[in-house]
C-alpha cells in the first residue's frame, strides 16, 4: 500500500470516483488547471477534461446552486468551497435547497448526488476567516449528512462513500492535517460506512469523543492520561449527521465518563447535542458530568491562536477533572 498524505488521498478518491462513474463532475474556485489552492484536484482536468473538472467564477452561492441543479438532473457533482469560512454565501442554497429538495417535492426530485467538499479548522495561523469549524450550523438542518475524516485512509474511504451516498453530503476536510497526516492508503476503490463511529482505542475509565483534526489532540491527551494510570477509550465520530449514538452509548455504559471535543465554539456546538443525548441514555451510569473541551465563544483569533485551541493539554486537564469529580 502506498503512503499518502491526506491531500493525495482525497485526490486519489476523486480520481477513483471520476474513473468509475462519468457522472462525477468536480468544480469550484481554482480547481481546474491549478488543481485547487491546496491541490486536492491536481491533474483531474488533465485526465478527465475541462467538461468534468473546471474553475467556476468566484461565487459560492453560484457554485452550490449550480451543483444543486446538476445533481437534480442526475449527475454527481463534487463542489469545492475553497475554505469552510467562505461557505456562507452559499448558506441559502445549502440550507433551504440542498437539504429540502427531496422533502419538498415528495421525493419527485432530489440532489442526493451532491457532495460539497471544504477545508475547515484552525492551527494554521489563518485568523478568523481561514480557521472556522462551521459543522454545527449545518447539523441543525435536517436533510444534510456531515462527514469529517481524521487521516488519509479514512479520507479516501469516506469521500468515496459520500460521493455515492443517496443523500447530499457536506465533507469537511481538516486542513491542518492535509500534509501533516500521512499513512497507508489502498490504491483500489473502497468505501467506509457513513453514520458509523469507530472505536480507535479501547479503554476503561473514560470515553474521549472527537472527529477530524481533534482526533490527534485526543490521542495525545490519552497518552498523557495513560501515564497517570487513566485508561481512555477513544472514538472517532466520523459522521456528525447522522451520528452513531449506539457506539457512543455502549462505550459510556462501560466507562461511565464522556469527554467531547471540537474546535468550534462551545455554545451551540455539536458537543452539546451529544451530551444531551448521552445523559438521557446513560444517566444512571455516569460518574461525572459530560465534559466539553472546545474553542472559546469568540471568533477565531490569530496571535493568540494557541491559547484559543482546545489542545491536548486542555483535554488532559478535563480528563483528570472528570476522573477526580
Amino acid at each position: 500500500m502506498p503512503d499518502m498524505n491526506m491531500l493525495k488521498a482525497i485526490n486519489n478518491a476523486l480520481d477513483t470516483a471520476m474513473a468509475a462513474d462519468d457522472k462525477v463532475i468536480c468544480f469550484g474556485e481554482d480547481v481546474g488547471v491549478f488543481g485547487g489552492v491546496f491541490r486536492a484536484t491536481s491533474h483531474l482536468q488533465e485526465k478527465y477534461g475541462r467538461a468534468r473538472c473546471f474553475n467556476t467564477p468566484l461565487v459560492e452561492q453560484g457554485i452550490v446552486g449550480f451543483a444543486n441543479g446538476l445533481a437534480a438532473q442526475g449527475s454527481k457533482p463534487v463542489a469545492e468551497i475553497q475554505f469552510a469560512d467562505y461557505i456562507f454565501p452559499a448558506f441559502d442554497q445549502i440550507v433551504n435547497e440542498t437539504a429540502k429538495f427531496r422533502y419538498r417535492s415528495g421525493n419527485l426530485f432530489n440532489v442526493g448526488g451532491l457532495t460539497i467538499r471544504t477545508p475547515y479548522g484552525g492551527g494554521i495561523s489563518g485568523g478568523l476567516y481561514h480557521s472556522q469549524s462551521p459543522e454545527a450550523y449545518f447539523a441543525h438542518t435536517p436533510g444534510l449528512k456531515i462527514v469529517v475524516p481524521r487521516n488519509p485512509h479514512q479520507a479516501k474511504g469516506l469521500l468515496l462513500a459520500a460521493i455515492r451516498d443517496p443523500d447530499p453530503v457536506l465533507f469537511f476536510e481538516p486542513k491542518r492535517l492535509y500534509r501533516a497526516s500521512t499513512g497507508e492508503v489502498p490504491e483500489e476503490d473502497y468505501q467506509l460506512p457513513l453514520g458509523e463511529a469507530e472505536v480507535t482505542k479501547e479503554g476503561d475509565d473514560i470515553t474521549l469523543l472527537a472527529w477530524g483534526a481533534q482526533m490527534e489532540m485526543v490521542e495525545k491527551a490519552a497518552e498523557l492520561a495513560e501515564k497517570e494510570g487513566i485508561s481512555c477509550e477513544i472514538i472517532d465520530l466520523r459522521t456528525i449527521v447522522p451520528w452513531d449514538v449506539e457506539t457512543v452509548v455502549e462505550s459510556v455504559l462501560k466507562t461511565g465518563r464522556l469527554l467531547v471535543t471540537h474546535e468550534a465554539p462551545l455554545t451551540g456546538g455539536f458537543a452539546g447535542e451529544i451530551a444531551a443525548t448521552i445523559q438521557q441514555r446513560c444517566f444512571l451510569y455516569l460518574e461525572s458530568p459530560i465534559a466539553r473541551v472546545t474553542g472559546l465563544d469568540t471568533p477565531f483569533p490569530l496571535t493568540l491562536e494557541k491559547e484559543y485551541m482546545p489542545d491536548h493539554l486542555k483535554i488532559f486537564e478535563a480528563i483528570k477533572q472528570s476522573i477526580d469529580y
Partner: protein
Amino acid sequence: MSTTKKATIVHTPSFMDGDEFRVPIFKLLKQDGTTYKNAKLPDLDRDKALRIYRAMLFTRVLDERMLAAQRQGRLSFYMQCTGEEASIVGSAAALADEDMIMAQYREQGALAYRGFEVDEFMNQLFGNDRDYGKGRQMPVHYGSEKLHYMTISSPLATQIPQATGYAYGQKMAGQGHCTITIFGEGAASEGDFHAALNMASVHQVPVIFLCRNNGYAISTPAHEQFSADGIAPRAFGYHMKVIRVDGNDILAVYQAAAKAREWAVENNKPVLIEAMTYRLAAHSSSDDPSGYRSKKEEEAWRDKDPVRRMRLWLESKGWWSEDDEKQEQELRRREVLEAMKRAEKRPPPDLETLIGDVYETPTAQLVEQLEQLKAHIRKYPEAYPKGAKSLDAAKEGNENA
C-alpha cells in the same frame, strides 16, 4: 410589467447580445513618460504629484521588504499591491481625505497615501499589542478610523454592498462625502457585487465602485471569470455611469476618479470604474503563479510598470531626479526595516483581547471562559508563551501599581 423607460416596439424577433456596448479604455500617459497628443491632463500640481509618487514608491518598497520577511519566516503571510499602485494611489488621491475607503486587501497604497505610518503597518503585520486589530486578523488586514479606511475583511465582496450603505449614510449626513469601494474582478462575480450596484442605483447613493481588473483571481484567469467584455458593461444593466481606465496610467486613473467623485457627490449617484491592470506578484506569499501563467506574460506587464511610468513623467517635468529616487528608496527601505525590528520585538496583545470586542462588553460566559483559560495557562506557561507573557506583564503591572 414595468421598465424605467418607454420601450420601442418591434415586430421581428431580434435578440441583442450586448456586443454593441464595447467600453473604450481611457489613457493619458505613455510608458515612456510622455503624454498622448490632445490628451487633456488633470490639474496635478508638483506637491500632489510627489505625494502620490512617494506613496506608490513606498508601497513598492514595503511589498518587497515584507515579502522577503515572509520568505525568511519572520512573517506568516503577505500580499503585494505590486503592479497596481497607480490604480490604488491614483484613485485615493482623487478623493477628499475624509471620504471612506472600503477595500479588499491589496490596497495598502491607499493607506500609504492617506498617511498611515510605517509603524502602523508593521504593528498590524506582526499582530502585536499595538495592532489596532489586536492581533486577530491575518497580515494586510489593516484598518484606520482616523484615516477613514474600513478594516479589511477576508470574505470577498462583502464590503461592496456595505459601501453602498455607508455612502447612503453620508448622503443623509449631507457633508458632501462619498465612499469608494475597491475590489478585484474575481470578487465582482459574487452576488454581493450585483446587490451593491443595484441598490446604489435604486437608492441614488454617492459611491464609487472601483474594480481592479488585474487579470487573475488566484489562478483563475479573467476569461474564465466572465465571458463578457470585462466588468464595465455591467454598469449599463444597473443604469450607472461607467469608465474604463488604463490602471497603470496614474494620470488617467486620477482624472477618472476625480471626475467620478465630482459626479457622485454632486448628483448623489454611483459610478463604476474598471481599472485595467495586472497583478505582477503572486496572489499571496502562499501562491506560486508558475503553475498557471507564463513568465512571458509577466514580462510583458512588467514593461508597463505603473511606478516607472509615473517616475518618467515626473522626471520629464523636472520634478524628480535620479538622486531623488535613490535617496527616497534608501530612506524608505531603512524606515521599513527599522519599523519591522521594532514591531517584531513588541509583546503580543493582552490575553484579555481574546474575549474583547465580541460584544461591547464581555458576557458572563466569556469572562468565565477567560478565567478558566488563565488558570490553565498558569499551569502550563511553557506551552502558551504568548499567553504566559501577557499574564506576567499583568502581574508586574499590579505589583508596580
